[in-house]
């Protein structure tokens, strides 16, 4: 049952990617900006989780909630300070600013606490369960249940609440939404808050799963989550979840087949293939550009 084991590992990893990808996809859907700083919010989330568990002795759930709340605030601050002025600027200017913010956060964290990695504390005893011959650790179950819960809550927020309706309206047509009395600025902030909170949660569960965090950990998972978002069709929420899961499973299988050094390349190969053959993603529809 080797492949079942790998599938379970892949899904655990993939659900972390999916959580980060949701933030990318929501922000891209609403202001058409690749938020490069998103991977750094994920890193900050992991560190807040670490300090609240190891430093202040909080349990897993309070640490997760604290990390999500702080990341939401940081995400909104970044949007207000750095991105708000650039709504009407060119896409390249916005993208470069996002890269700048990402470098600033990385190096700011290194400046404040040093670049040394930190070992994540163990919040729950590692038990393994037997599942059709495959071993599932309690951590995998935890990761899966947290991610699934958050994704269900997100679906509920986006489809059933007023702010979710406003988000969908703004992403469809910001000008028209404004005319209909929707506060576009607050809606964008809410999108950043929700996306960043999900990245924060992903950071905490990443820390628990991999037991090691460092200030530069956000770069590669951030890029891969973006690949996941593109894979599913950027701007489409179920697409980001599916993309994250597919990417996690593919990566795990590439490692399992003995090409672990090529694991990072697999994500980028998938990205390039998708961009070339189906730029709108697996779940997307083609749109033609008008003059």
């Amino acid at each position, binding site marked *: 049952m080797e492949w079942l084991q790998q599938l379970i590992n892949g899904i655990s990893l993939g659900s972390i990617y999916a959580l980060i990808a949701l933030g990318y996809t929501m922000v891209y859907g609403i202001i058409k900006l690749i938020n490069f700083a998103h991977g750094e919010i994920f890193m900050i989330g992991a560190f807040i989780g670490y300090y609240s568990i190891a430093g202040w002795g909080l349990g897993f759930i309070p640490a997760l909630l604290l990390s999500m709340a702080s990341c939401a605030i940081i995400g909104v601050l970044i949007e207000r300070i750095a991105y708000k002025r650039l709504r009407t600027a060119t896409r390249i200017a916005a993208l470069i600013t996002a*890269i700048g913010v990402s470098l600033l956060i990385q*190096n700011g964290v290194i400046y404040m606490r040093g670049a040394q990695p930190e070992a994540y504390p163990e919040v729950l005893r590692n038990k393994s369960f037997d599942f059709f011959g495959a071993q599932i650790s309690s951590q995998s179950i935890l990761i899966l249940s947290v991610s699934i819960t958050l994704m269900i809550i997100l679906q509920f927020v986006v489809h059933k609440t007023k702010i979710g309706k406003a988000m969908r309206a703004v992403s469809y047509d910001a000008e028209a939404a404004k005319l209909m009395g929707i506060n576009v600025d607050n809606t964008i902030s809410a999108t950043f808050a929700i996306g960043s909170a999900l990245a924060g949660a992903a950071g905490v569960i990443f820390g628990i799963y991999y037991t090691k965090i460092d200030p530069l950990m956000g770069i590669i998972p951030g890029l891969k989550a973006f690949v996941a978002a593109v894979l599913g069709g950027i701007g489409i929420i179920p697409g980001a979840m599916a993309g994250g899961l597919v990417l996690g499973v593919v990566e795990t299988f590439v490692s399992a087949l003995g090409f672990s050094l090529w694991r990072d390349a697999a994500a980028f190969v998938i990205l*390039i293939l998708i961009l070339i053959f189906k730029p709108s993603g697996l779940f997307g529809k083609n749109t033609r550009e008008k003059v």
Partner: protein
Amino acid sequence: MKKSKQFWSFVAASLIAYTVIQVLLNVGVLNDFHSNILIFMSINIMLAVSLHLVIGVTGQFSLGHAGFLAVGAYISAIVTMKLNLPFPVAILAAGVIATIAGLIIGIPSLRLRGDYLAIATLGFAEIIRIVFLNIDYVGGAAGMQVTHLTTWTSAFICLFITIVVIVNFTNSRHGRACISVRENEIASDAMGINTTYYKVLAFAIGAFFAGVAGALYAHNFYIIQPSNFGFLKSIDILIYVVLGGLGSLSGAIVATILLTIVSTFLQNYPETRMIIYSLVLIVVMLYRPKGLMGTMEITDYFKLWRGSKGGSQHDK
């Protein structure tokens, strides 16, 4: 007529600059430390100018320039260290192979626009880096030993050729086509310009000079490792271009010179250097989204200055 006058004055100025620095080096006023900074500066200017052709002139946002630098560095190192051929051959081989890499990457990914192109080139650069990481012939993660062959003279000659070729390309019919692609791709397509051809052409020329810069880069250090050519290196090069002005060649050169000096002095404080870099990047983008000089060249400022003193401004 006007352009050729400008060209010859540029040639004269650079010859004078070269002779002065060479004399100072021979006399001993400038020591090894200074000549190292000069070489490093030339390499950075070559990278900035070649990326300027892709981003500034053609308007294609490429985030993978470090990939071509890596190709050039490794190919030249293989040519000199494994095949024992002379250094000029290595430089040429580095440029040619990097051009081929540029074509391979450019033809599929230049069908994409804006953000997607940026991400695709970034992905390609990462793949190149991972490929070098996994080839034992070039030392894998431990890196490859390279002898020190780059001198101030060779760096200067390569830099001079780079600038001359790119300036002349930009001012030629092809360069104007590239600028029209930057300004409005759909409109220039409708005017009968083969946009894909020009985008790929600019990309390939940019890759060639990045490869040449890679050869100089590899032979300026004693060891090259895949980790030297990561995402951050691409960002470094991007900062030179963006800061100077998207579309301004002289702006890119000035920004590169300034930032190379700043980063030499901050060598022992890498975090501080990156914090300053990123703050500069954010502030410039927020307040001057087209970079410090926009699409203006230094010579345009002279014209403006002369124009304000009563001369004619319409003598272009």
